[in-house]
Structures are given as structure tokens and as C-alpha cells.
């Protein structure tokens, strides 16, 4: 069991928690050491996995999932701890590792209770990593919940503003989603095998059996898609996102927007679309309408916000809406674009939130009306913010462009008027994105210094630079050399595309 | 036979009357005393039903043990001759209603229960006593010390652990700080 590399993605955060457990609350150095070592190992492991995976694929191993392993966990319900990764999960693991790594540095000076903060943070990472390695629906769901719960405490204790309200709202709405999800997953489980066969939670087996009765599929699809869609900030279930992000501490916003929201998108195609292909074909239009609204609606909402985090939260609604929107186009290119958008959005939103945290830590305000001309005072942070902004509005050479273009070209393949109309609406969002990003950049960074007191502020410290550079390198990396990622993802979508085509 | 019937009526009367008195009297010590009579009445019923061991236990544990506890507790917590404060009236009414309705319902259920209308249900005490074996101490001992079906070693041990826990708990809770 321990010979499987994937298991270590869960074990290391747990070890980190153990390590933190023995640290004293006051010894910041020890806590940081544990976190830095742990997150570095995770990052190294993720890169190693990625290289290994590509090497195996290069060597012609084209099983659907690699590094698989399965250990019985609870026999009466046939629950396994089943792990395995395809290209998408590998990239998601890499993304998570990068963001955990950057998040560690972004919360270098967390106060109060650093030890407890990082404990919950590590638990959150456990959930996230566990989710991406699982191919057993139940284990997946368990890790999903493990990732959600620490959020409540992280926001409620270390947040700012109306933190209790936001934490409660976020947790309750996501739990509501989980309730739908649980129903959906149980439904799939009870129909996972043809009559008389052994029921299973294993995604691959369910997909192979393809035994979910079409009349049930529609209902279960709605349950699972809405369940994951809540986490993916799908209209009208997105309102936890602005409040939650606005109140969360920096690293939590990063991890939440960067990775946790991706759990939603990932679940949508891995479970809802893959396991219920007939329903996906039939019901996609409903969710295309909702996610299409998300895309435009989020962008318009972001235009008139004055709180930096609200702007980014609505921007996330728009971008994550784009992820689900692209998935629902149900063709390989658009779905590939969706994954690219997940990666891109994860990195750039993490960067955004990291920077907002750093700016807030200095100016103690997030209201763009109270700031101005920060580029003169903290040029490093200003430049990083602009880079993040450019990534967000889809500048070529940065990740956002690649993702959006792949989505648009994929989505355009559906040649009927309904799809076309929504794609045109979605493309409009890139203009609106430019509007709100430039509005923020103009008010926040450029122009005259708004507040005399800000002139005394300092630029980024070394750990802040480290955190942001990590993310920027990844963003530019995807932007410059997208094709290897693109190919990895496209290959991984083949089984899903086959399932969808067979179900027509 | 007749003796049995007479005994029954006496005991039933005692139980009924003292039950009512135990819950209506104003003095707490009296309530405990009336309870004692009810418990003894129940013990007599056990004897009458042929469960001598059970009756003995009832007398020993309840009448002997628990009642003493009650009396001690009452003496520890009450000043002598102090009446209970009158209860709130709506509770009183609700209590009466609840018990009367409950009583009526239960009695109605008893009299219409199909199971009691069968041959077993309608047989008399003497029939019942003769149709089964006498419960001997040997049988009880075996039932408590075996692990077969209808044998209760495990619950028996569990109860002993419970009692131990209860002793420790009682001591811990009630000791002076």
C-alpha cells in the first residue's frame, strides 16, 4: 500500500499535521519549518508524479488510470480506498501542490494561533489531495467533506470582517450541495451494476458497467451536477463565494479559490458527466443556461464592486462558470479548455488573493476608493497585480488566454444556434473582464497616491516575493508552453468522450 | 384458591391505593413510605406468580436497599415536616389528563388485545402455574452463568461492571469537594 506514490499525497499532509502537533504554539520557526518542508516535499512529489506519468504515457501505457491501487475499507458496502490518476488528476495534484506551497509562504506571518491555523490548513490539503487521487466515489466524497469542514474554522477564526456570518454561510451552502451530492452518489451506487451484479463505488467499474438506468440518470445527474456545481459557484448557488472569499484569510482564499472550487468542476465531469452520459447529453442545455448566466453575470457584478476581494470573488464566479460551461459543451476541445481554465484560474486567483492579502496587510483596507497610486509605493506588488490582471483578462503568453481560447474554439464546434448564442455571450465576458480588471488596476495602482499614510508602506518581503514568483512562473509557463498540458488533458478525456458518444 | 383470590384483592387494593397516595401526598417522607408498601405489594405478586426468587430480590433490593437510600436522601436534603410547595396548577391538570387518558387507553388496549383472548391469555393463575416447570434456584443459576442460548453470562457481567461504575460514580458525584 505504501509503495503507491499516490497514497503519499495523503500521508504527507497527515505527517505534517503530526509534526505541527508536536511544535509549540510559540515557536514560529518550527511551525514554518514543518510547513515548508512538507509543502516542498508535496511539490516535489507532484512534479515527480507528473514526470513519471508523462514518461509512462510516452512509453505507450494507455490505461485509463495509472498508479492504480485499491484496498478494501468497508466490506459490507464494498467501499474501497481506491486510487488512480489520469492526466487531469495529475495536473490537478500539481496545481494543488503549487498552491499549498505558495499559500504556506503567503501566510508566513499568520496571527494569532499559527500552529492551529496550519493544522487546519494541512487538513484541508489532505482533503484536496485525497479527492484528486480517489477513484472510489465514497472515498472521494469523504475527502471532499474533509476539505470543506476546515474551511469553517479557518474563516471563522482567522478571517476578517463579518467572518462568522460568512463562514457559516459558506459551510451551510456547501453542505447543502453535499447533501444533494450524497443523494446522487448513493443513487449511482445502487444502480452501479447490472441486475444481480455486485454494487460498486469504483468510478472506472461503474463507467464500464454503464448500468445506470436512463430514467434514473436524469435525476441523479441533476443531483450530482448541482452538488458539485455549488462548489463550482454555479449561478444561482454562488453567493457563498463573494462573502466567503472576502472574509477568508489570504492562504485560505488562495486554496479555496485556487483548488477547492476546482473540486466542483472536477467532480462534475468525473462523476456527473462520465458516469451519467445519457443524462449529460439530454440535460446539458439546462446547465448551459445557468453557467452561461454565471459567466456574464459574474463579470457584470464584478464591475461595480469596490472591495478587492469581492471583485475577485465575482470574477471567480465568472471564470468558474466558464469551466462548467465548457464541460457542458461535451466535446473534447471545450472540456480540455475547461481543465486549462481550472489550472489557469487556480493559479491566477491564488496570485490575486495572495496579492490582495499582502496589500491589505499594509494598507488595512480593501476598498479601492481608499487606495490609489500604489504602483509608486510598492512597485513589485503592483507589477504582480498587473500580471495577475492580464492573466485574468486573457493576455497571450499567460495562462488565461490559452484556456479561454481552447474553450471558445471547442464550444464553437457545436453548430446549433443555442450553443452559438451562449458562446457569443461567454466571449463577451472577456471584454467585461477587461473592463473590471482595468478599472481596478487604474484605481488601485495607477494615478495619484490617495492616502498620504500609504507613502510609508514598504514593498514585498522575501517570502512574499517567493510566493508570488512561484505562481507567476506557473502562469507564464502554461501561457508559453501549453501544448504538453493540452495533450495530456485531451488524452485523458477520451474515455469520457466515448462514454458520451455511446450514450447518444 | 380462594385464599389466592383474597390475597390478590388485598394486594391489588394496597398497590392501587398506595400508588395514588405516593404521588399525591404532600410530605416527601410519606411518599417514600407509601412507595415501600407498593413495592412490597409487587413482591407479593411475584410470590403469587411463583417467582419466589424474584420476590425475594424485590424485597431485598427495593425494600431493603433502595428505600434506605431514599430515606437517607430525604433526611439529608429536607428539613423535617416541611411540606412540598404547591405545584403549578396547569401541570397538575395536564398530569391528571395524561394519566387518565393513558390509563384508559392502556386498559382499553388490554381488554381488546387479541393475544389475551387466546387460550393462553385466558387461563387462570393455577393453570399457568402448573403448565410450566417450577423455577428452581439451579435453573436461575445456570441461566446466569452460561453462554448458550437463553443464558446470560455476558449481561450478568455487564451488570456487575455497571454496578461497579455506579458505585464509583456515586462516590465521585456525591463526595465533598
Amino acid at each position, binding site marked *: 500500500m505504501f509503495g503507491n506514490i499516490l497514497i503519499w499525497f495523503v500521508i504527507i499532509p497527515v505527517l505534517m499535521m503530526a509534526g505541527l502537533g508536536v511544535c509549540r504554539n510559540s515557536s514560529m520557526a518550527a511551525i514554518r519549518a514543518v510547513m515548508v518542508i512538507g509543502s516542498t516535499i508535496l511539490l516535489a512529489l507532484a512534479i515527480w508524479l507528473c514526470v513519471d506519468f508523462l514518461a509512462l504515457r510516452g512509453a505507450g501505457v494507455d490505461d485509463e488510470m495509472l498508479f492504480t491501487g485499491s484496498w478494501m475499507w468497508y466490506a459490507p458496502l464494498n467501499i474501497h480506498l481506491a486510487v488512480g490518476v489520469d492526466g487531469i488528476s495529475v495536473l490537478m495534484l500539481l496545481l494543488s501542490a503549487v498552491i499549498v506551497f505558495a499559500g504556506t509562504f503567503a501566510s508566513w506571518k499568520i496571527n494569532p494561533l499559527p500552529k492551529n491555523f496550519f493544522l487546519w490548513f494541512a487538513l484541508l490539503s489532505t482533503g484536496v489531495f485525497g479527492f484528486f487521487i480517489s477513484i472510489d466515489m465514497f472515498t472521494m466524497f469523504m475527502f471532499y467533506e474533509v476539505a470543506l469542514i476546515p474551511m469553517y474554522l479557518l474563516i471563522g477564526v482567522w478571517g476578517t470582517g463579518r467572518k462568522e456570518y460568512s463562514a457559516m454561510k459558506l459551510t451551510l451552502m456547501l453542505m447543502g450541495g453535499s447533501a444533494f451530492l450524497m443523494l446522487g452518489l448513493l443513487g449511482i451506487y445502487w444502480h452501479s451494476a447490472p441486475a444481480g451484479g455486485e454494487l460498486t463505488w469504483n468510478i472506472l467499474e461503474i463507467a464500464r458497467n454503464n448500468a445506470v438506468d436512463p430514467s434514473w440518470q436524469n435525476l441523479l445527474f441533476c443531483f450530482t451536477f448541482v452538488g458539485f456545481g455549488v462548489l463550482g459557484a454555479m449561478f444561482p448557488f454562488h453567493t457563498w463565494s463573494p462573502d466567503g472569499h472576502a472574509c477568508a484569510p489570504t492562504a485560505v482564499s488562495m486554496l479555496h479559490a485556487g483548488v477547492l472550487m476546482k473540486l466542483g468542476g472536477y467532480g462534475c465531469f468525473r462523476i456527473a458527466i462520465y458516469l451519467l452520459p445519457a443524462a449529460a447529453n439530454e440535460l446539458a442545455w439546462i446547465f448551459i443556461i445557468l453557467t452561461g448566466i454565471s459567466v456574464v453575470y459574474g463579470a457584470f457584478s464584478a464591475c461595480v464592486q469596490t472591495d478587492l476581494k469581492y471583485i475577485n470573488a465575482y470574477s471567480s464566479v465568472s471564470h468558474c462558470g466558464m469551466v462548467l460551461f465548457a464541460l457542458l459543451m461535451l466535446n473534447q476541445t471545450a472540456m480540455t479548455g475547461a481543465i486549462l481554465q481550472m489550472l489557469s484560474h487556480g493559479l491566477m486567483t491564488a496570485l490575486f488573493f495572495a496579492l490582495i492579502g499582502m496589500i491589505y496587510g499594509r494598507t488595512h483596507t480593501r476598498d479601492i476608493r481608499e487606495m490609489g497610486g500604489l504602483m509608486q509605493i510598492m512597485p513589485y506588488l503592483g507589477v504582480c497585480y498587473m500580471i495577475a490582471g492580464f492573466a485574468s483578462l486573457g493576455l497571450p503568453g499567460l495562462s488565461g488566454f490559452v484556456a479561454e481560447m481552447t474553450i471558445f474554439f471547442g464550444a464553437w464546434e457545436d453548430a446549433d444556434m443555442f450553443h452559438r448564442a451562449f458562446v457569443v455571450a461567454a466571449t463577451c465576458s472577456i471584454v467585461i473582464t477587461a473592463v473590471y480588471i482595468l478599472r481596478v488596476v487604474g484605481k488601485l495602482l495607477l494615478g495619484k497616491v490617495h492616502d498620504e499614510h500609504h507613502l510609508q508602506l514598504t514593498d514585498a518581503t522575501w517570502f512574499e516575493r517567493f510566493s508570488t514568483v512561484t505562481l507567476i512562473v506557473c502562469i507564464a509557463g502554461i501561457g508559453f508552453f501549453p501544448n504538453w498540458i493540452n495533450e495530456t488533458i485531451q488524452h485523458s478525456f477520451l474515455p469520457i468522450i466515448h462514454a458520451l458518444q455511446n450514450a447518444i | 384458591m380462594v385464599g389466592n383470590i383474597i390475597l*390478590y384483592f388485598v394486594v391489588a387494593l394496597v398497590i392501587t391505593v398506595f400508588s395514588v397516595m405516593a404521588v399525591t401526598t404532600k410530605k416527601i417522607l410519606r411518599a*417514600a413510605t407509601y412507595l415501600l408498601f407498593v413495592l412490597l405489594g409487587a413482591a407479593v405478586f411475584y410470590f403469587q406468580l411463583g417467582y419466589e426468587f424474584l420476590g425475594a430480590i424485590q424485597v431485598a433490593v427495593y425494600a431493603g436497599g433502595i428505600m434506605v437510600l431514599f430515606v437517607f436522601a430525604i433526611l439529608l436534603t429536607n428539613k423535617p415536616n416541611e411540606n412540598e*410547595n404547591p405545584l403549578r396548577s396547569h401541570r397538575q391538570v395536564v398530569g391528571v389528563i395524561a394519566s387518565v387518558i393513558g390509563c384508559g387507553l392502556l386498559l382499553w388496549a388490554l381488554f381488546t388485545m387479541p393475544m389475551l383472548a387466546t387460550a393462553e391469555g385466558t387461563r387462570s393463575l393455577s393453570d399457568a402455574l402448573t403448565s410450566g416447570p417450577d423455577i428452581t434456584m439451579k435453573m436461575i443459576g445456570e441461566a446466569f452463568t452460561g453462554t448458550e442460548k437463553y443464558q446470560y453470562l455476558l449481561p450478568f457481567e455487564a451488570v456487575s461492571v455497571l454496578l461497579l461504575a455506579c458505585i464509583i460514580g456515586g462516590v465521585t458525584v456525591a463526595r465533598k469537594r
Partner: protein
Amino acid sequence: MNLDILWYLVPSVIMFCCGVYGFVTRKNMIAMLVSLELMLNSADLNFAIFNRFLFPDKMEGMVFTLFAIAIAAAETAVAIAIIINIYRSIGSTEIVETNKMKH
């Protein structure tokens, strides 16, 4: 005149209902405990009665009664310990006073 099962069950029912009434209306916790004992006893009695009349060749009812008595004894002992403790803390055994813990 036949002493059948109903004869025995009726006093038991009355005992039980008296217990209910007492438990609901009493303010003193020891008095409530007294009512509780009434209800318990009624149940015990029912076990024995049903055993004797309906399944005379078995002894499960009796065994259960034995266990119930043992547990009742334990429960009473703990309850009285708690009551004494409460009395020591708040100087009263009235049930309405015990919500002081909440404030």
C-alpha cells in the same frame, strides 16, 4: 372467578399511570424519583406477569426483571448521588431550580 392475566395487569396499569402523574407533577426531585420507581416496578411486574401467563415454560421475563431491578438500583443510587450533590450546590432539590446551570 378466575384469576387470569388481566387481573394482574390492571393494578400494574394503575401503578404506571400514577407514576406518570407523579413524575409530571412533582417538583421535588426525590419525589420524582419515587414516581419513577413506580413506573419501573409496573414494567417489571408486567414482565413477570406476561412470562407467567403466556410463556410459562420459559423464564426470560423473570430474568429481565432481575436485570431491570439491578439496573434500577444502580440508577437510583447514581440519581440520589446527583440529587445530593445538587442540593449541596444550590441548597434545594426542586427541579425548577436546576436550570441554574444554564445561566
